[in-house]
């Protein structure tokens, strides 16, 4: 991987976690919804990063969040799962451009329609894993579904917002 990609990604990791820890872990929309925007970092890891490294990076990201909200390994488990299915997502969602080296799975490189689908699916799966793993009881099936859906929506909204801001800056 070239240096041009490493530094922005490290910066993105730091920025996302500063926002997550200082602001988003405390924004309780409608009482209990707080977006897990650290997922933005995992989503934007460049294509050419080795799959093993993606797994480890996602684990670290998830575990960092766990440490800050003391939830054991909940976020680490969900993030690692997302990193594992990420290649599958990237392959199945068709884009107009071919994947070349140096590309990132972002709007700037692959367009809005592609990114919205990709982020939407990933965020939803992530929320489902977190809340079903946390509750771990099927008697709460629909409440948990509703809860993960609301969280997924909030997270999705902010990730799209970030991409939007990032693109304005580039133009």
């Amino acid at each position, binding site marked *: 991987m070239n240096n041009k990609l490493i530094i922005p990604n490290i910066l993105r990791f730091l920025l996302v976690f500063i926002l997550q*820890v*200082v602001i988003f*872990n*405390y924004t*309780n929309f409608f*009482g*209990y*919804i*707080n977006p897990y925007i650290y997922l933005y970092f995992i989503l934007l890891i460049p294509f050419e990063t080795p*799959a*093993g490294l993606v*797994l*480890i990076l996602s*684990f670290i990201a*998830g*575990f*960092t969040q*766990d*440490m*800050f*909200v*003391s*939830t*054991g*390994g*909940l976020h*680490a*488990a969900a993030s*690692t*799962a997302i*990193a*594992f299915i990420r290649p599958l997502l990237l392959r199945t969602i068709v884009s107009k451009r071919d994947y070349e080296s140096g590309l990132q799975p972002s709007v700037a490189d692959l367009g809005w329609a592609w990114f919205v689908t990709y982020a939407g699916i990933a965020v939803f799966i992530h929320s489902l894993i977190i809340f079903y*793993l*946390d*509750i*771990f009881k099927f008697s*709460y099936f629909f*409440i948990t579904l509703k*809860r993960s859906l609301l969280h997924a929506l909030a997270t999705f909204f902010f990730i799209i917002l970030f991409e939007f801001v990032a693109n304005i800056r580039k133009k």
Partner: protein
Amino acid sequence: MRNLLDFLKSIRIFLLFLFLETIALLFTFNSSAFHSATSFQFFTGINNRIMKVRSDVVSYFNLREENRKLMEENMCLRQRQKESYIISDQRVFTVNDTLYRQEFEYLTASVINYTINYKDNYITLDKGSQQGIEEGMGVYSPLGVVGIVDHVSQNYCLVKSILHSEVTISTTVKGEGVTGTCMWDGINYTTGILKDIPVHVKIEKGDTLLTSNYSSIFPAGIPVGYIAEISTDATRAFYNVKYRIAADFSNLSSVYIIRNLIKGELEELEKMKEKRNEQ
């Protein structure tokens, strides 16, 4: 052998995935392993420092609300003071009281971090072992019971909030003599479940739930919640009561920690009993 190595190599990503998931799940379902991990101490150290600054800033925005709560509490306390009672009987003696002694001591603490949207929720406070905090102490806010101290570091402590699957509070219904157990329903931060109240007791919507005097953690009479919904359980012997949690978990900033001055003595005594049993 070569084939095996090739095979392992081809699934190495999957193996790494399994390995990381195992660690994550181990920490998820074994919270004591998580809390004793050395990295946890390190991260909470950083987190607490960030949170301290954050809560210092944020607390300014809540000052008005905090003042209102404090004034209300001051009012309650003043009402209980001796000066606010008129002596109706002039033949009252003042007795040097040797019957009563202080059992509970109160310390104030600020909330620097808390969650409400998991199954097991925790609160971080800015008081620790250096300020005399120990595991098992009760925590309450001016509005009601908040939790029980779970882990203590030098300057901070981690509190199991009543929004935690393992926390139960022994409760009485105000005005009735019965004792029940309060726990969280695991769904909404404003509602909890009260169990073990037999159906022959008359309870009504809106009744206040207070901590009972069977607990060595909380003094009797701290509000836990207010009854919201009453139904009977499958056996029809006990009520199934939903209650509104008294403490306001959407806005938690300053709390009291309760130290039971007699608890240590009590535990020592109970230990003697165990020793006797061993012999």
